[in-house]
C-alpha cells in the first residue's frame, strides 16, 4: 500500500496547490480591497468631520475678532488706561467700562486687567486666575513683545475644568506708547465644550493641541492623557497610530491660531471584525485542505489498487510465474493495461513452452546418437585383429573393410563434435569403400568439393546418414549406381548436396525435410536426427532439403552456416 505514497503525496500537493493558492489570493484581495474601501471612506468622512469641527472652532476665530475687538476697546478706553496708570479711579466706573467692552465675549471668556508689573487689578470673573503674572515670562512677556496685538498661549494644563485651556492677552499702552498694563482673556474647557456640543459623532473624540502639540483641551480625559504619546509619535515617525488598532486619528491645523485638532474615531471595521474575517478565511483554507486530502486519498486509492495488482503480477512474472493474470474488467486505461499485460504474459508462456520442447527434442536426438555408438573400443580392437587375421589368411577385402571400419569407428568415438569438412570427407570415403565392397562395386562415388570449402567445420558424421540414405534408397534399383557429393557456399551458408541417379523422391516429399521419427521407418531416423541437430544446433533456417535432380535422381542438401577453422566446443 505504501508503494503509492509518492504518487499520493504528489496528488495531495497538487490538489492543495490548486485549492489553496486561488483561495488565499482571493481572500487576501477581498480583505485588502475591503479594507482599502472602508479606510478611504472613513478617512474622507473623518476629514469632513474634522473640517466641521474646525468650522465650529472658527466661531472662536471669529470670536477671535470679537476678542480683538474687546482688546482694542480695552486698550483704547481712556477710563481703563487711567485706571491702570494711576491708583485714583472710580471702581464702579472702571468696571462699567470693562463689562461693556467685554460684553460680546463674556459668555465663554473671562477678562482680567493686569498692570505693567503684572499685578492683577480688575477681573470680570469671580475667581481670579493669578494675583500676579511675571512680565518676563509666559503670556504677558509674549503680549509685551507683540505690542498691542492679541497673542495666544496655551498654559500647562491637566485638562481639569477649573484650569484655563486658552489664554489670550494684549498689552495696553498709553497714547505716548508707555506700557500701562495687559488685558488677559481666559477661555475654560466648559466654553469649548459648549462650542463642540452636538458637532461630534457619538463615538468621536476631539483633542485640541497647542502649536507644539501640548494638550489644550479634549472631550475625553483619556484622549487628553494620550496627547504626550501622540506628540512622541509625531516627532518620531510622523504617523499617529493607535496600538490597539481600534481607533484612527485625523489631524487638521487651524491656521490663524496654530492650534491642531485631532479627531479620534473608531475604525469602521474594528480589529474584531478583521479578526473574524481572517478566522473565516483560515477555516475555509482548512476546509479546502481537508477536502483536498480526502479527494486525493480517494483518487489515489482508486488508482493505486489496479496499479498495485499490476505490480504484483509483474513481480510474479519476474519470478517466472507466467500464469500470473490481472483483472481486466472495466473500460478505463487500467483495464486496457491489464489486457495488454495478460496478452504479454500469455505470449511469454507460449514462447517458454516452445523453448522447453525444442530443448527436449535436441536432448533426445543427442541421446539417440549416443545410443548408436556402442562400446566402440572393443569393436575397433576386434576389427584390428580381424585385419591382421585376414592379412595372414590372404583375404584382402576383409583387411580393407576392417581397416576402414576401424577408422570409421575411431572417428565416431572421437571427443570433438565438429570436424573440418576435409576430415569428414575422408571418413566418408572409408564408409563408401565398405559399402562398395558390400555391394560389389555397384555404384560409383563422385566427390566435387572445392578446396576452399575443405576447412569449413561441420558436425561429425553429418554426411554418413545422407550417403547411406542414397545407397539404400537411391541406387538400390539401378545397375550402374552413381552418387555425387557436391558443396558450394551461398550467402554465408554451406550447402552440401548428395544426389543419386535412382528413382527420386515422391513429389510430396520434396522441399524442406519434415519427417517425423517413427519406429517402423528406421531408415529415415538418421535423416530426421540430422535435420533436428542442424536446426537446433545452428538455427531453424538450417536443415535438410529434399529435391529431385533433372535426371530424376534424388538429391538431399544439408544447409548449415559456413564456419571456418574453429570447431565448436
Amino acid at each position, binding site marked *: 500500500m505504501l508503494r503509492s505514497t509518492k504518487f499520493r503525496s504528489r496528488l495531495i500537493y497538487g490538489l492543495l496547490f490548486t485549492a489553496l493558492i486561488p483561495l488565499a*489570493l482571493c481572500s*487576501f*484581495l477581498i480583505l*485588502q*480591497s475591503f*479594507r*482599502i474601501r472602508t*479606510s478611504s471612506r472613513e*478617512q474622507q468622512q473623518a476629514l469632513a468631520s474634522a473640517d466641521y469641527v474646525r468650522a465650529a472652532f472658527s466661531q472662536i476665530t471669529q470670536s477671535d475678532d470679537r476678542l480683538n475687538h474687546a482688546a482694542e476697546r480695552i486698550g483704547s478706553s481712556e477710563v481703563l488706561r487711567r485706571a491702570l496708570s494711576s491708583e485714583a479711579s472710580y471702581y464702579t466706573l472702571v468696571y462699567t467700562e470693562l463689562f461693556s467692552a467685554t460684553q460680546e465675549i463674556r459668555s465663554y471668556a473671562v477678562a482680567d486687567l493686569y498692570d505693567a508689573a503684572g499685578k492683577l487689578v480688575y477681573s470680570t470673573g469671580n475667581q481670579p486666575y493669578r494675583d500676579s503674572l*511675571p512680565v*518676563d*515670562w*509666559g503670556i504677558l*512677556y*509674549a503680549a509685551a513683545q507683540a505690542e498691542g496685538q492679541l497673542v495666544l*498661549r496655551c498654559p*500647562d494644563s491637566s485638562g481639569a475644568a477649573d484650569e484655563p485651556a486658552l489664554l489670550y492677552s494684549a498689552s495696553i499702552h498709553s497714547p505716548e506708547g508707555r506700557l500701562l498694563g495687559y488685558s488677559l482673556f481666559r477661555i475654560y474647557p466648559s466654553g469649548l465644550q459648549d462650542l463642540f456640543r452636538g458637532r461630534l459623532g457619538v463615538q468621536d473624540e476631539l483633542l485640541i493641541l497647542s502649536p*507644539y*502639540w*501640548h494638550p489644550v483641551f479634549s472631550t475625553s480625559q483619556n484622549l487628553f492623557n494620550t496627547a504626550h504619546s501622540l506628540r*512622541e509619535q*509625531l*516627532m518620531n*515617525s*510622523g*504617523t*499617529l*497610530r493607535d496600538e490597539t488598532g481600534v481607533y*484612527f*486619528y*485625523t*489631524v487638521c*491645523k487651524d491656521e490663524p491660531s496654530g492650534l*491642531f485638532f485631532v479627531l479620534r474615531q473608531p475604525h469602521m471595521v474594528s480589529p474584531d471584525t478583521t479578526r473574524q474575517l481572517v478566522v473565516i478565511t483560515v477555516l475555509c483554507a482548512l476546509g479546502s485542505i481537508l477536502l483536498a486530502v480526502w479527494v486525493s486519498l480517494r483518487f489515489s486509492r482508486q488508482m493505486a489498487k489496479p496499479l498495485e495488482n499490476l505490480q504484483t503480477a509483474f513481480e510474479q512474472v519476474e519470478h517466472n510465474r507466467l500464469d500470473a493474470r490481472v483483472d481486466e474488467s472495466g473500460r478505463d486505461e487500467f483495464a486496457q493495461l491489464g489486457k495488454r499485460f495478460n496478452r504479454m504474459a500469455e505470449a511469454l508462456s507460449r514462447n517458454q513452452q516452445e523453448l522447453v520442447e525444442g530443448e527436449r527434442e535436441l536432448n533426445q536426438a543427442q541421446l539417440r546418437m549416443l545410443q548408436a555408438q556402442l562400446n566402440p573400443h572393443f569393436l575397433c580392437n576386434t576389427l584390428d585383429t580381424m585385419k591382421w587375421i585376414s592379412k595372414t589368411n590372404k583375404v584382402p577385402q576383409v583387411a580393407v573393410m576392417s581397416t576402414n571400419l576401424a577408422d570409421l569407428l575411431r572417428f565416431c568415438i572421437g571427443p570433438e563434435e565438429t570436424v573440418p569438412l576435409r576430415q569428414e570427407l575422408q571418413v566418408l570415403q572409408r564408409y563408401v569403400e565398405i559399402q562398395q565392397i558390400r555391394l560389389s562395386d555397384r555404384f560409383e562415388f563422385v566427390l566435387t568439393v572445392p578446396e576452399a570449402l575443405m576447412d569449413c567445420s561441420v558436425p561429425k558424421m553429418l554426411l554418413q546418414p545422407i550417403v547411406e540414405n542414397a545407397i539404400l534408397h537411391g541406387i538400390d534399383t539401378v545397375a550402374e549406381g552413381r552418387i555425387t557429393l557436391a558443396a558450394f557456399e551461398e550467402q554465408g551458408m554451406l550447402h552440401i548436396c548428395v544426389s543419386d541417379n535412382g528413382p527420386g523422391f515422391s513429389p510430396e516429399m520434396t522441399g524442406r525435410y519434415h519427417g517425423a521419427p517413427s519406429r517402423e521407418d528406421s531408415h529415415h531416423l538418421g535423416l530426421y536426427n540430422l535435420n533436428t541437430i542442424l536446426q537446433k544446433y545452428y538455427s531453424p533456417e538450417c536443415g535438410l532439403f529434399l529435391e529431385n535432380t533433372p535426371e530424376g535422381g534424388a538429391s538431399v542438401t544439408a544447409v548449415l552456416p559456413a564456419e571456418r577453422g574453429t570447431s565448436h566446443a
Partner: protein
Amino acid sequence: MMRRYLAVLLVLCTLGSLCACGAQPTQTEYSPGDNRLVIYTSHKQEIVQPIVREFEERTGIWVQIISGGTNELLDRIAAEENDPQADVMFGGGGESLQACSKYFQPYASPELDSLLPQYREEDRVWLPFSSLPIVLIYNSKLLSAGQLTGWNDLLSGSLQGEIAFADPALSGSCFTAAVTAGYVCGNMEETMQTFARQLGGEICSSSGDILTAVEEGRKKAGVTLEETALKQLGPGSDLVMVYPREGTSCIPDGVAVIRNAKHSENARRFVDFVLGKDVQQLLARELFRRSVRSDVSADPALPEVYAGAAAHYSIEWASTNREKLLSQWAFWFGQEG
C-alpha cells in the same frame, strides 16, 4: 523558468501595492522635522516643563524631553557616543558632568559674561545652571535651636547615629556635602572619616529620603540642598534649615551640549536661554534655586551664603578623586564609631 519568475514577481508587486494602498494616513506634514531639540534631563518635571514650554514658544523649536537619573543619562550619553540621540544634557551636578567631559562639546555662551565670577570657568565643557548651597536641617521637636549650627556640631559626636544622610556613591549632593565638610573642617580624610562614623551604619535610600527621615523624626538632623529644604519648609513643618556657620559650598548643577549632537545649533540656543536672565529669574522666583547670574538677585528672604573655606571647593579635584574618596568612605562607614 524566466516567465514563471516574472509571473510571481507580478503577483507580489500587485499584492505589495495593495498593501501600500491600505496603509494609514500619515501626519508627516505637521512633524517638526529637524526643527527640534532632544533633551536628557535629570531635573524634575516642575523645573523642566515651564522652561521648555517657554523655550518652544519663544524659538519655535520643538523639544523632546527624556527624563532620568543623572548617572543613567550620562551612561546613555557614553553609550551613544558615536550616534548621539540627545542634543543637550540638562541637569546633573558639576562633578558628574565634569567626569563625562569627553562626551560634551565646549560652548562659550555669550551669557558667560553675565555669570557670577566664581562660575565663569571658560575652559569647562559644561555651563552652570543654578547654584545649590548645601544646608543642614533638623527637626525642631527633637533638637532645640543652637544645638545644630554648623559642620562641627555634626562631627562632634553628640548626634552620633542621628544624622540622615544618603550614600554619596548614589547621591551627588551627599558626595558634595561630605567633600564640603572636608574643605570646611580642614583635614579632608580625617573629617570624612569622622563624618562617616557619625552615621552609625545607617543611611537613607536616597537624598529625597533625608527630608522625610528628619520630618518624621526617624533622625534628628540631616544634610541636604537648600532647594530641597526650601520646598519642604513652610507652615506646619517641623523642619528648620540652618546655613552652617563655618560656611558651605555652592556647587552648581549644569547644562552641556553633547558632542556631535544632531541639532547642536538648537542646543546652543537652549543653553543661552537657560543661562539667560528670564530663566534665571524664574529659578529664583518660583523654583527655590539660586541664580548663577550676577544680575539676578536671589529671593530677598534668603540670606547670602557664607562660603568660608568651602570657597576653595574644586570641582575638578572632587571629580578626579571621586572614586578614591568613595571607596574610602565605604570603608570608614563600615568601621562604625
